[in-house]
């Protein structure tokens, strides 16, 4: 199979201004992510994971450097094209779920499809199907506050998959969940990754993610510390779990 790079960043930098003091958060990230990969971006809090996540997702503008999604430089896109990219190419999952509180699970999943111009009936059918896939077929008409954290995150996953994106970006998807639910969400993401060939990029410091990742990108202080393939990881996972047990 030919290599198909879906995300490429070149010398990506982001500096926030704290009043008048510049605070560099990303200090030059060069990254290539292939189609269908499951990537974990690991690093301690404050290392720039979420900032990198926002840059790749076109949710914030880099100070310097480039982000290519599917070989398109997203800095060159106008507001309309950028919205289209967010709508059709990328699915987002957040630590805090970020469902629209006044809408039912079904309507939350339908929303991106409505934006994409799908008819209400088609959107409803597809949303039902997606919610069944994530195991919430019996919770279609519940509002977010009537769902548990794990269930809300499942809705968010279904919503992220709504327009068959090429990439799913997940920022600490297990951060607000207990161990068991977190594990279920990780497995669900992996299953979607396998079934739908969607690339998954998670920013996380949840070590459970290591199990399922194809590659792990370790970030420290806004720089890539190292990138590890799955084969080299297994040993480390055992080590880490041993640590946890002890």
């Amino acid at each position: 199979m030919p290599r198909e790079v879906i995300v490429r960043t070149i010398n990506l930098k982001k500096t926030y201004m704290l009043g008048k003091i510049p605070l560099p958060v990303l200090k030059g990230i060069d990254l290539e992510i292939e189609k269908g990969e499951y990537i974990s971006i690991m690093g301690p809090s404050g290392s720039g994971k979420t900032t990198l996540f926002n840059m790749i997702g076109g949710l914030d503008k880099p100070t310097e450097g480039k982000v290519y999604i599917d070989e398109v430089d997203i800095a060159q896109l106008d507001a309309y094209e950028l919205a289209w990219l967010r709508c059709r190419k990328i699915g987002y999952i957040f630590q805090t779920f970020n469902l629209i509180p006044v809408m039912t699970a079904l309507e939350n999943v339908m929303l991106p499809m409505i934006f994409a111009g799908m008819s209400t009936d088609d959107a409803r059918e597809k949303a039902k199907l997606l919610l069944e896939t994530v195991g919430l077929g019996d919770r279609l008409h519940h509002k977010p506050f009537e769902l548990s954290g794990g269930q809300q995150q499942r809705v968010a996953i279904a919503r992220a998959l709504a327009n068959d994106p090429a990439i799913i970006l997940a920022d600490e998807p297990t951060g607000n969940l207990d161990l068991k639910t977190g594990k279920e969400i990780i497995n669900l993401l992996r299953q979607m990754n396998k079934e739908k060939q969607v690339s998954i990029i998670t920013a996380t410091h949840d070590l459970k993610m290591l199990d399922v990742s194809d590659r792990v990108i370790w970030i420290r202080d806004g720089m890539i510390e190292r990138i590890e393939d799955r084969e080299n990881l297994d040993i480390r996972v055992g080590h880490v779990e041993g640590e946890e047990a002890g």
Partner: protein
Amino acid sequence: MEKKIEKQLSLPLKNALQMSLRNFKIRFGRAIIVTMSILLGIAFFMSIMTSNAFTYALIEKGPENIKTLLIENISELKARQTWLLTLSLLVCTVGIINSMLMAVTERSREIGTMKCLGALDRFVMELFLLEAMIHGIGGSIVGSIIGVLIMTIVYLIQYKKIILSIFPLLQILKYFGLSIILGTGLAIIGALYPAIVSARMEPAEAIRREV
């Protein structure tokens, strides 16, 4: 480089209206407060317009003694009413802008999320302006009715049954229409600024923003 962007993004009016109405229903307490500020302003406005209509009707068709009394004071009356009218509109505008600002700021995260899902700035604007319109129409209809009722009662107490015989229905209906246009217009103007600000935020910024 080939651009892969052809398809339309859309938010049909039907869906937008549905979402706005839903918001109104679910955040009912909050919505009522916003509507109240419009309602009170418009009730104030409408009561003054109604009182105007009564005064002119009395001058035209009322008994001689009331007529002469009113004509003597008409210039002073007019000045006071203009002042009250301006005041009521000011209070109304400031109240609406304040409420809409709050409503938008506390929903910052929701706006950010919608933009992640592919909402254009225009959709966000559309939703907030539609909501403002619902507030505006609801508030000004109820406000107008209250204004007319209060003034009718006041004049009934003061002038007794004469008021009913000279009731300036046409004039009051005209003011009713005017106040609905005014109330809705003010609500939309009040919502415009916060809606523009919120629609223009980068999604990451909107989600990050703490209220």
